[in-house]
């Protein structure tokens, strides 16, 4: 009884099948990376908590109205000015009562004591503000803080902040220049 050998399967079409699958995955693949501006929301406030009083000189108020116009510290401003104003505000100005107070603080990672500005940038927007404008303002403020980090990093290590690799240095810079942006509780100003 001669056992018939199992006929060999023709593997010639294997490539075609693989190609078909490949093309399917090529088409359905989305290679996009999600990018965006990361922020941390403050935890919810209880009703009976007293407002923390912050001295007026320590706050830079940035308001955006429903027509996407800016009010920077009581004066109408343009988006192109915002970055300069923010950097100037957060910088240390010794013995100048119109700028925020500052306190020395020892930064462990850097091993040196630095004057920390007590300034806070307060951002407030109307319900009618467009999201695009809001993001533009957030972006300008973020870039202001980024520039300050760059400057400090340049001074200390001779490298830009983005070029730092040492985790310790990055953390040091981050704690020396915290991103002090506060978003006010929403309020309806100026209607729709």
């Amino acid at each position, binding site marked *: 009884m001669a056992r018939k050998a199992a006929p060999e399967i023709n*593997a010639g079409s*294997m*490539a075609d099948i*693989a*190609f078909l*699958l*490949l093309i399917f*995955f*090529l088409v*359905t*693949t*989305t*290679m996009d*990376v*999600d*990018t*965006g*501006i*990361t*922020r*941390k*929301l*403050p*935890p*919810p406030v209880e009703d009976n908590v007293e407002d923390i009083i912050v001295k007026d000189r320590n706050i830079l108020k940035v308001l955006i109205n429903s027509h996407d116009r800016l009010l920077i510290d009581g004066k109408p401003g343009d*988006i*192109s000015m915002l970055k300069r104003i923010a950097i100037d505000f957060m910088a240390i100005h010794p013995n100048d009562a119109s700028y925020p107070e500052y306190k020395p603080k020892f930064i462990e990672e850097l091993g040196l004591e630095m004057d920390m500005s007590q300034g806070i940038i307060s951002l407030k*927007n*109307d*319900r*009618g*503000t*467009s*999201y*695009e404008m*809001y*993001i*533009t303002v*957030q*972006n*300008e403020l*973020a*870039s202001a803080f*980024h520039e300050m980090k760059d400057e400090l990093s340049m001074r200390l290590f001779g490298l830009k902040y983005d070029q730092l690799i040492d985790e310790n240095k990055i953390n040091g810079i981050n704690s020396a220049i915290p991103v002090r942006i506060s978003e006010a509780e*929403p309020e309806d100003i100026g209607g729709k």
Partner: protein
Amino acid sequence: MSRFKMKKGKGSASINTSSLPDIIFMLLFFFMVTTVMREVSLKVKLKLPQATEVQKLDKKSLVSYIYIGPPVKSKLYGTNSRIQLNDTFANIDEIQEFVAKEREDRDEADRKFITTSLKVHGMTKMGIVTDVKQELRKAGALKINYSTRKGRAKN
């Protein structure tokens, strides 16, 4: 005729294609592994604003998305911005439930690393975004990310 025959004898040898399936399979596996299937079909228009100071969102599995924008079917749903959670339009009060459910789906250890990515159409009014942010605060989802495209912001 004899000249043709001579040519045939000296013709270039055919390339061995037996390894072709292997190569294709390799590519196939690469794409299969890197592919992330779209989980939701968008019901709102999304034209994300541009920004320069963007950060990458890593760990895609730890990101939950909230979409806000004008509905695609504007004849049916109007042009006012709506919130989309998963596959359906949602009301503002459903967000807390959504956050709780997203948290439930993740590992216990990963829960505090969940980022909520807000994908919002640029023309949307901030009112609805503020409402969403308030709800997120109440739900305890404090890490958020305003999704933007990298590029020059409008000045």
